[in-house]
Every structure is written in C-alpha cells, then in structure tokens.
C-alpha cells in the first residue's frame, strides 16, 4: 500500500511510529500509565495502524437531540444530562493505547471527554458501590467494570478522538474509554452507568468473556472465563 492509499482509504491510518509519552507536548494531558511500559503491546496482541470497527449489532441510530446520559444505582444524586449539558462538563484529555480482545492494539490515541471520576463525584457514589455497569444505545448492550478500573485517572467518557468527533461506527457521540482493560469494556454509544454492589455480567460477559478483562495479566490476558 502506498502512502497515499493509506491516507485516502483510511484517514485514521497511522503513518508513523507511536509517540512516546514524553513526546506528547500537551502539558495538561493525562498519560495512561500503560503507555510508559517498555513493551506497550500486551501478550498475545499485535499492533495495528488502522482503526478497526467491531460491534455486536452495528451502529444504532442515536438522535443527538434526544440523546441522554443517565447515572443511577448506588449514588446519592441520580443524574441526567442532555448532550449539550454533558459537553458543558469540564473536559479532560487522555493519551492512551487501545487493546481489543480480538488481538489488535492501536497505540497513541488522544481522547477528549469527561473524566469518569468527575461523573462519580457529581453523582456522589456510595461507598458500597464496587462495580459499574455501562449501558449503551445498541439494543440493551451492557458491560461490567470493577469500580477501581472505572475510576482510574485515565478512564473517561470520550467525545473526541485525536481531536475529531468520534464517528458513529466508533461509538460516537460519546463512548466510555477504559484504557487499562480490553476495549470491549470501553462501551460504544454509552447512554449511562449504574453503580452496583455486586458484579453483574454484561452482554459479552454473559457469553463467557472475562468479568474484568485486564490485558496484562495471566500470560495471555483476561480474555475469557473458559479455555
């Protein structure tokens, strides 16, 4: 493939090597700790320069005018945001890598959005909350995340990827990004989060996918609950 082919067919194609975290010039950006690893590719993964699309049902129709983001479960103050209200929340930027359980990793991504801990703070998460269920617009799709990963400083609800709005096929207008777990936990088309005391399997987890999904542990990463 020539240089131009890549640019024309896939504007998100990465022409260069990933930047090192220290080469990221933005002083306010949050650097995902996994980007500081000597080898940034977790076991069993391969780097892709593309931005592949994977989903369970295809992109759902999301009407930006009626888009809502809800926070409920074990919180002091259940919350509801319109897209406009959500965009008014203080933004953060995160530099992180992206690891898909189907064995590709896309390095060097800049996400802009609302910090998960900002949402947790606004809602007043109760101490008994230990897990988060992310809910999405695609036909009741959900995924479960341990609260300590949900609240990592590099976790966010993103609306920009590398400075541009996240296209529908990649989960826009807003998707969850949890860089320290496999990317199916980074719910596309997110429409809310529920704080829970007990873990509850989400869509893929009900089919045997891992309840936590840490790419860096146990030899080949926490992909499935079967082998």
């Amino acid at each position: 493939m020539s240089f131009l082919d890549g640019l024309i067919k896939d504007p998100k194609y990465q022409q260069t090597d990933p930047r090192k975290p220290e080469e990221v010039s933005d002083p306010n950006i949050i650097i995902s700790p996994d980007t500081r690893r000597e080898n940034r590719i977790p076991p069993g993964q391969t780097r892709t320069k593309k931005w592949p699309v994977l989903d369970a049902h295809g992109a759902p129709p999301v009407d930006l005018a009626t888009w809502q983001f809800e926070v409920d479960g074990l919180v002091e103050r259940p919350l509801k945001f319109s897209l406009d209200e959500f965009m008014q929340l203080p933004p953060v930027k995160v530099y992180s890598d992206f690891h898909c359980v189907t064995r590709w990793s896309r390095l060097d991504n800049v996400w802009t959005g609302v910090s998960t801990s900002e949402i947790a703070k606004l809602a007043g998460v109760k101490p008994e909350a230990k897990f988060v269920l992310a809910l999405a617009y695609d036909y009741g799709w959900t995924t479960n995340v341990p609260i300590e990963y949900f609240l990592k400083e590099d976790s966010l609800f993103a609306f920009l990827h590398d400075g541009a709005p996240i296209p529908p096929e990649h989960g826009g207008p807003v998707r969850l990004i949890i860089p320290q777990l496999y990317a199916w936990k980074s719910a596309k088309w997110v429409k809310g989060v529920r704080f829970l005391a007990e873990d509850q399997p989400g869509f893929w987890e009900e089919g045997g996918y891992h309840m936590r999904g840490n790419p860096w542990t146990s030899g080949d990463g926490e992909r499935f609950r079967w082998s």
Partner: protein
Amino acid sequence: MNEQYAELIAGFPLFNGFTVNGAKRILDAGEVKDCAPGDVLLKEGDSADFALLVLTGTLEVFVERNGQDLILTEAQPGTILGELALICGISRSASVRAKEPSTVLEWSDETLRTLLLRDRSLAQRIFRQALRTLIEKEQSLIDELAKKQGTANH
C-alpha cells in the same frame, strides 16, 4: 421451556462460562425442533444451509454404503452438527438421524456466520471442537490403516 433449554445450553462444556441470559441469545438466534426416532435431519450429499446443536436425546451420524448404513458416531447433547459443511461451503459429508426422541436447535447458515463473526470467543470454541473431531477421525483412520498394514505384513 425456553428457560430450560437456556439452562441446558449454559451447562454444555462448549458453552462454559455462558450465563442463562447469554445462552438465551444463542437459543433465540435459532429454532428449536423436536424429532422422533428415525427422523433424518441431515442427508449426505445435500447442500448445507443450516447447522444443529443437539439439546436432548441422541442422534446417529451415518453414511450409506453398498446399501447398508455405516454408523460413524452418536451425537449427544451439547454437540454441534453440520457446521463444517457450512463453514467450508461443501455438501453434507454424512447423514444424521434421531436414534430416540430428541430436540435440536437449528441455526441457519446466515445466523451461524453472524454468530461466528460477532462472537470471537464462540467462534474459537466451535472451531476448536470441530477441529478436535476431525483430528480424532483422522487418528482412528490412521489406526485402522496401521492395523491393516500390520496384518498384511504378517
């Protein structure tokens, strides 16, 4: 009834780790069919447009040669049948009939392809089972051949 089948599916080794809800999605993707002893579900040489998961009962996998049925194996609950013909785009390599009253889940070609493409974990399991079955068959063929060769050498 669907709830019971979903619990059954979640208990099959092939679906280890599935919750009952997860199994329901597998179930809803296909069609449950009851069959009586002797019903032929797949016929050798036919073009393939669906695969089966045995839910209850026992099925016989057989081929007809020289006017006689040659039973290749018996398929128990939890076994997938007919998936290789779909995946490889070939006609049925054997016939399948119910040995006793049985229930199967039938997935159309398109449904199976969608399941395999969307659920990488399930795809990995199904390929693993299919390849194991093939390897076992190959091994037994090799053993047969070796036996024959042994006899010939004596």
